């Protein structure tokens, strides 16, 4: 019943779609190895100089002194990376704990405000990040709280808690309620049931939620942009700053490394999900 011509057209369109998604990333990767510092779009020859420069090895690139000058500041970049990892780590821990507790509360207990909470927890995800960002900025300034790492972490947790909540809740919804009953029936107290049955059963969901929270926190630009102090620039904000000041070849190298990192994390996520089934 499949129409071969229609199917071929659909296949061509779809492959084109994936090309549209991936070609720009491939362009970056390609040009990160181009030695032409003036016009990156014109291929000169293969080089690792931009990576060397980024990793603070620029002085070994002696053939062209100009190139070292392009490297803005390796130290700054590494500091931004460190801040990003710290923020993402703390955010993940906090939002995973709060989100999981909320998911358990909303799916295992009956109470009047349940519907309200279910709706309310959607809001932080749906609120445009710019509104949340400036709201937090005004709030922190009004109460006299110094913009710092802490304010970024708080900002990220406001919406990532909801993400973790959604994912863990979906996992609980797919769980046989008789599992917890069986545990109680066999003599386990609520606490033992939580520790020995519910949490292990939810583990894939909790891990998935934590991974998502980590990735989004690492990548968040808008909220961080508003609530980061001058001394707490994260990696996306750092790159945003570089991009705003114009296209420079070392951005290609940073971007390529970030793309590679994201592929690794995505593969990890896929692996986690495939383990979920047993």
């Amino acid at each position, binding site marked *: 019943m499949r129409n071969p011509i229609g199917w071929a057209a659909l296949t061509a369109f779809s492959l084109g779609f994936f090309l549209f998604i991936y070609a720009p990333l491939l362009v970056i990767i390609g040009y990160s190895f181009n030695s032409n510092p003036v016009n990156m779009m014109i291929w000169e020859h293969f080089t690792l100089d931009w990576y060397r420069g980024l990793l603070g090895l620029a002085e070994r690139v002696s053939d062209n002194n100009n190139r070292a000058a392009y490297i803005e500041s390796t130290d700054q970049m590494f500091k931004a990376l460190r801040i990003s990892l710290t923020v993402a780590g703390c955010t993940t821990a906090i939002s995973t704990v709060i989100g999981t507790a909320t998911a358990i509360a909303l799916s295992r207990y009956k109470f009047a405000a349940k519907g309200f909470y279910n709706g309310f927890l959607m809001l932080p995800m749906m609120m445009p990040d710019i509104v949340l960002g400036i709201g937090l900025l005004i709030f922190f300034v009004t109460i006299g709280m110094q913009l710092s790492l802490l304010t970024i972490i708080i900002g990220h947790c406001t919406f990532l808690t909801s993400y973790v909540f959604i994912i863990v809740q979906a996992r609980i919804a797919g769980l046989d309620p008789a599992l917890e*009953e069986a545990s109680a*029936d*066999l*003599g*386990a*107290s609520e606490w033992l*049931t939580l520790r020995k049955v519910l949490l292990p059963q939810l583990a894939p969901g909790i891990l998935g939620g934590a991974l998502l929270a980590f990735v989004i926190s690492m990548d968040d630009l808008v909220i961080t942009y508003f609530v980061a102090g001058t001394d707490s620039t994260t990696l996306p904000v750092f790159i945003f700053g570089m991009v705003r000041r114009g296209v420079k070849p070392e951005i290609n190298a940073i971007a390529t490394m970030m793309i590679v990192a994201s592929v690794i994390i995505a593969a990890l996520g896929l692996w986690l999900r495939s383990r979920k089934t*047993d």
Partner: protein
Amino acid sequence: MALLEIRKARREFITPEGGRLAALDGVDLDVAANEFVTLLGPSGCGKTTLLRSISGFETLDAGTIRLDGADLSALPPFRRPVNTVFQSYALFGHMTVARNVGYALEVRGEDRQARSRAVGEALEKVGLTGMGARKPSQLSGGQRQRVALARAIIGQPRILLLDEPLSALDRNLRQQMQIELKTLQHTLGIAFVFVTHDQEEALTMSDRIVVMRAGQIEQIGTPRTIYRQPKNRFVAEFIGETNLFSLTIDQIDAGLAHARTAEGLQLRLPAGGAKVGDKALAVLRPSDFTLSDQGIAATVTKAVYLGSDLYLFAQPAVGGPEIRVTARDSAQAPQVGAVVHLAYDPAAAHVLEAA
């Protein structure tokens, strides 16, 4: 004193439409030690609610449940000396079979050695020796069922509660498990309370059957009593195939009542305490009839082949509903359209208490 005493148990649910529905509406039930009791009824009759009230997952609105004379109502499920085999088995997917089976001992804090010995014994009892290292996902449906059983008996409960545990198995395995369960109950010497909607299962396994409808108990009795002497129309129709006759008694003669239906079909019944002119509702099972030279004249309208037996639908010549009859299949078995005569032993006819 009975092991388990349930008195005036009442539990209401709020329906989605906002109404109230009594899942248990004044239930009284005793279960003796070492007894196999089956709660039988259509879905929504309250049998699962009753079971869950014993295990502690439902709280009664009124009434008491006592075990060995002690009131259970204040005890949370994990403090009650009863264990459940769940309909979905509810095996913990992240644990091995052995850890699943030993769970009750693990949470009690028993040491590893005692646990592994008890697990070995429990697995042996259900015929799963050597399967301890597997994960539940690697087992067949029948094996999972046995793991659930082993897990529920390891803690030596006073009563084992079984919530339609065989419903997910195919017919052959189900029949095999019915016999095994009965045997296991004998060896363990503990009471089983078994919930099912399958009347055949109930008849096969139980010492006593509790027939429930709409939150109330319709009849309690041995399988034979329930089948041969159903108390009312509901029990008669729910258990087995039934011919029901609405009769008026014409004449009483030497302990036999002569009665007729509105259409004029004449039947003889044990008279009991009935008087002439009384209305009566009589039950005759399809196997109570035999094909004979004389008796009720009827025309075969349908013949269903059941292997060794034939299941006949016969339209009485005088009119009225068709009578269902089982007959042995043979070359001489009547065909559709044949006129047959249906004979029966009047003593086999059972007159219902309530019409």
